[in-house]
């Protein structure tokens, strides 16, 4: 795994040093918007992965110039840990109110870690049609990849201990915040 400094050529994600401790979510979002402006196709469709990615996709669609309809994806039915963990308690309905066939898609997620959620989301997208291209935008990249998946746009990079999970939350007034939680490897993670 070399997700911190070994990004493939041509990726527009920042080659920044990973920071210890959590970045401010607002600052990371501003940075992500900066990286996407001018780089994202004018008609790219934003697909947020529930729940954090869905909130971010809405913010990005407002902030980034162009016409960016927003869809939502919950790839629970495509996860590779179903046999070990079963179905997670709350599955949202995937809603993609536009054609996937031939579309330019930007998948949006809050935290990029193992890459397994992104793999599942890409598989689900292809059951709706064949997109022209898929890019990936994430608020934070915490390394730790278990699959050959990298983000196209990254808001912040950080190093966190394996036993911690990084969680994005949204307050009633819409303020986003990042926090760490001790992940006790729950059955339905």
């Amino acid at each position, binding site marked *: 795994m070399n997700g911190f400094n070994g990004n493939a050529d041509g990726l527009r994600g920042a080659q920044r040093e990973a920071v210890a401790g959590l970045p401010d979510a607002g600052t990371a979002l501003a940075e992500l918007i900066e990286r996407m402006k001018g780089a994202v196709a004018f008609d790219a469709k934003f697909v947020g992965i529930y729940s954090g990615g869905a909130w971010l996709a809405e913010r990005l669609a407002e902030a980034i110039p162009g016409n960016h309809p927003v869809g939502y994806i*919950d790839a*629970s*039915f*495509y996860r590779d840990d*179903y*046999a070990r*963990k*079963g*179905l997670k*308690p*709350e*599955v*949202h*309905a*995937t*809603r993609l109110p536009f054609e996937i066939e031939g579309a330019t898609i930007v998948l949006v997620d809050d935290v990029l870690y193992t890459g397994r959620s992104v793999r599942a989301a890409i*598989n*689900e997208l292809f*059951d*709706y*049609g064949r997109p022209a291209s898929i890019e990936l935008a994430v608020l934070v990249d915490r390394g730790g990849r278990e699959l050959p998946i990298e983000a196209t746009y990254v808001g912040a990079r950080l190093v966190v201990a394996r036993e911690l999970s990084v969680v994005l939350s949204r307050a009633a007034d819409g303020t986003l915040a990042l926090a760490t939680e001790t992940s006790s490897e729950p*059955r339905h993670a």
Partner: protein
Amino acid sequence: MRNPQLNANGELTHLLTLEGLPAEVIRRILDTAVPFTSIGERDVKKVPLLRGRSVFNLFFENSTRTRTTFEIAAKRLSADVINLNIGASSTTKGETLLDTVDNLVAMNADMFVVRHSQSGAPHLIAAHLNRTGRTHVHVVNAGDGRHAHPTQGLLDLFTIRHYKKDFTGLTVAIVGDILHSRVARSLIHGLTTMGTPEVRVVGPQTLLPTAVESLGVRVCHDLRAGLVGCDVVVMLRLQNERMKGALLPSAGEFFKHYGLTPEKLALAKPDAIVMHPGPMNRGVEIDSAVADGDHAVILPQVTFGIAVRMAVMSMVAGN
């Protein structure tokens, strides 16, 4: 004794009956079914959850609709489906039910969907699998005798919640042949568990089980009285094939007293929905004008039934 449907963590591992199933488990099944409803509308009507698993439809009693919807549900979850229409032939060769099951487990079955004319048959199979430590094999009851038809009960609950949002303010009438109806029993247990304040059963004395009040329902022998103020009307099929002796004068007489017509339906709330588990006997328990009318949600029930069965199968197979 532990509820044989739940594992040590209280998670659903078989679905045998709605009786005694906690409200949060029922709610979770209904919630999980929601995202499955949209899969039937996609180009690729499949998700890979049960890829590589073998689901055996074990139907000891005839059924087309239920078997087909279970088969569609399993296929949309990418499972391999094997249909066994055993009917009476297996017993003629002398094999016991549990021997049949053991043979199919030896063929690496992962799930049995069981319909049987004997109440308790799915329970017997599940208890046998639990007792012999084969907890990775799951049982879903697709209707046993007069006992239970839990996936039908769940799809009825799903339909009611879809149109009425909540159970806690509702008046529901279940009309017709309650005596022979496992659908009615499952729905009554489901409705009361989910906090429905008024469940009425409406039918002639001869088609109501004795002491049906003990299930927490109100008994009405008059359809008009039973329909007044209802949010939901569930019509049951008159099960002629199960009738022994003189329970009814005739189908025509039954329609006169208990058939749902537009005029009688007008006694229910203006936004009442009319449900029927199918297959319908038009002109016996329901008038065509009602069956094809604006209040009927009978065909959405069928569509929801697939999503609900997908939810049940994907939950039990993962636990």
